């Protein structure tokens, strides 16, 4: 019996010890070993991350994950999407359930500094807006005094809402739900006068309502919501991979390299394109990948502009203008450091 107890102790100690050391190896090595990228996605938001009837995920955030998979595996399909609610997303990333979180997550200081997370860039510049029924006759957020407002709990949206209404000395009633679906349903059933989330989300959710034309998005944008992919703190190589995947897509757009012409561009004499596509220099090796990493991203997923237009821009139902998400050369905020 004593031997049994001792054996149990040893077994328990080894089990705990091993699990402690396993966390030390890099995310890239783990992903390569596993053969598939675990990507934390949203629970369904058109244009950003939504599974279709066949279970294929589409969206701008989804393509971010596909681009990382393309860079690592040369196969954008090697991604397993794990739907996470706003409430569960950080815990899942912290605990290692997902390698990368790409689901309309706002970059804030507290999230960046105290949650053990790192933001790897901004793939969508957004801001918080409000949607109301047309028949209410409201044309400004400032006229929502006394209104009941539906929102998703645990989001920056919930905090901005409180800040904005307090700053403008407006009384309101908040009704918070755990999931976006329930929030929209409650708004549609008339439980709330207004629904608030990121403006892009409002346009996407409006399409799901039974009569989209009966609802309007109010003009005020009450906050900055820089959305982007997130990784765990403490793995610099992995952060670099995700960060430079995003930058590669931006640089490709800026240099005119697209899904259609990327093979021709391999013959380009432009030194910037040569460095991007790996025909010159060893930029891919520096992040633990092969030198044609960016070529694969553009070839298999597309450049930033293509991904934007296909998912949320003119090629989609949402028809959101590029606006702040245009390249810096075209008056927008999207700006990638050069590859050199």
């Amino acid at each position, binding site marked *: 019996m004593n031997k049994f107890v001792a054996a149990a102790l040893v077994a328990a100690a080894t089990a705990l010890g091993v699990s402690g050391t396993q966390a030390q190896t890099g995310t890239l090595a783990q992903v390569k070993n596993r053969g598939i990228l675990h990507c934390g996605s949203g629970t369904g938001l058109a244009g950003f991350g939504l599974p279709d009837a066949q279970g294929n995920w589409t969206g701008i955030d989804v393509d971010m994950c596909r681009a990382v998979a393309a860079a690592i595996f040369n196969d954008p399909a090697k991604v397993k999407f794990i739907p996470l609610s706003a409430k569960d997303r950080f815990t899942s990333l912290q605990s290692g359930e997902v390698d990368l979180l790409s689901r309309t997550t706002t970059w804030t200081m507290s999230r960046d500094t105290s949650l053990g997370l790192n933001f790897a860039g901004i793939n969508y510049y957004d801001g918080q807006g409000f949607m109301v029924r047309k028949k209410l006759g409201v044309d400004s957020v400032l006229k929502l005094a006394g209104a009941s407002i539906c929102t998703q*709990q645990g989001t920056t949206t*919930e905090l901005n809402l409180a800040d904005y209404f307090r700053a403008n000395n407006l009384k309101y009633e908040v009704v918070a739900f755990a999931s976006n679906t329930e929030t929209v349903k409650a708004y549609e059933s008339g439980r709330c006068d207004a629904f608030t989330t990121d403006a892009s989300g409002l346009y996407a959710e409006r399409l799901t309502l039974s009569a989209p034309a009966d609802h309007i998005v109010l003009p005020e944008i009450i906050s900055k919501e820089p959305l982007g992919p997130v990784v765990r703190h403490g793995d610099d190589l992995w952060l670099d991979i995700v960060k430079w995947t995003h930058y590669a897509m931006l640089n490709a757009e800026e240099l005119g390299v697209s899904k259609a012409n990327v093979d021709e561009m391999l013959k380009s004499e432009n030194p910037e394109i040569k460095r991007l596509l790996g025909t010159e220099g060893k930029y891919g090796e520096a992040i633990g990948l092969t030198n044609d990493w960016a070529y694969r991203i553009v070839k298999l997923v597309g450049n930033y502009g293509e991904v934007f237009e296909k998912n949320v821009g003119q090629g989609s139902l949402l028809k959101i203008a590029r606006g702040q998400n245009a390249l810096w050369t075209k008056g927008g905020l999207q700006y990638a450091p050069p590859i050199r």
Partner: protein
Amino acid sequence: MSSIPTETVQPGRASLLYDPKIRGYVYQLALLAVVAFLIWSAASNAIENLRAQKIASGFGFWHNAAGFDVNQKLIPFSASGSTYGQAFYVGLLNTLLVASIGIVLSTFLGFFVGVARLSPNWVLSKLAMIYVEVIRNLPLLLQLFFWYNAVLKPLPDARNSIALPGNIFLNNRGLIMPNPQFGPAFQAVVIAFFLAAAAAVVFYIWSKKQQERTGKQYPNGLITLALIIGLPLIVYFFAGQPLSFDLPQQGRFNLTGGLQIYPEFVALLIGLTTYTAGFIAEVVRAGILAVSRGQTEAANALGLRAGPTLKLVVIPQAMRVIIPPLTSNYLNLTKNSSLAVAIGYPDLVQVFTGTVLNQTGQAVEVVAITMAVYLTISLVTSLFMNIYNKRMALVER
């Protein structure tokens, strides 16, 4: 497991080693040590990992400003100035509120349905059976969605509220009624209420003694009712009616002022009550069936009618069977109230494990506190039910 020792032992210590009591202690200590070691390992492992990932830990967040609003609260809470700690209390009180009202209502409904199922009235017993079978076999979460939508859908929007007599309004934001404002002199009324309650207890004990001595029965129920309602009422008028009402006013979007009962609360309460009552009904039925038929026959033979037979003979004996599973159902109701998160009622899980966890990111601390709270509520409920059980247990002479 074979108990043959593999090592040879000194003859002097053999008796000690084979003493079952000593062996029991040794094994229990060994088990305790293993469990303690596992907990310690898990905790230190978690702390180490948190530190490695630079995730903030500790309970410092408790006093940080929360920055979000909650609509249904029993204590003052606002985005300006309230802390995460206060958010915890808001959630906790909301959980306790819905659980305690739910326990009382589900007990009444459960006893009624349980007794109805045994009723000789065919329609009543079949209706009770259908109720139990439907309610028990559907997941509670679905029932909550059903109730939430069923409560909300038929109600008009806030601009077309149904006006009920007494300045009470009903719309899809809830039931809005005059909010009582208590003047300082209202304390006298409260004191009168407690005095009346004490007097009722004293009278009950006196009448019981009288009945044992003389056989004369007093209308206890009526006298208690008269005392508890009458005395505070008299004091209320003497104190100059220290009660006013904050009446709901039509605002731009909704009625403002007044006391509001939210549809989320109502839906959760109905869902929890009807669901748990289905189980309690079966517990009650089992308890009543456990009482031998001979007891009823004996009571009838003594000339007791059906009512007193049930009240004085059957129920007291059935309670002994009913109480332990009833306790489990109370605990389930309390824990199930955490499903509130799905329909937007700000209970402990929604406010604390939902919003606070997400805003602070301190999963380990927040989840540990929540688990400790549910454990405490459950243990306290069990404790009281065990005390009650002891009182109801068969007294052997």
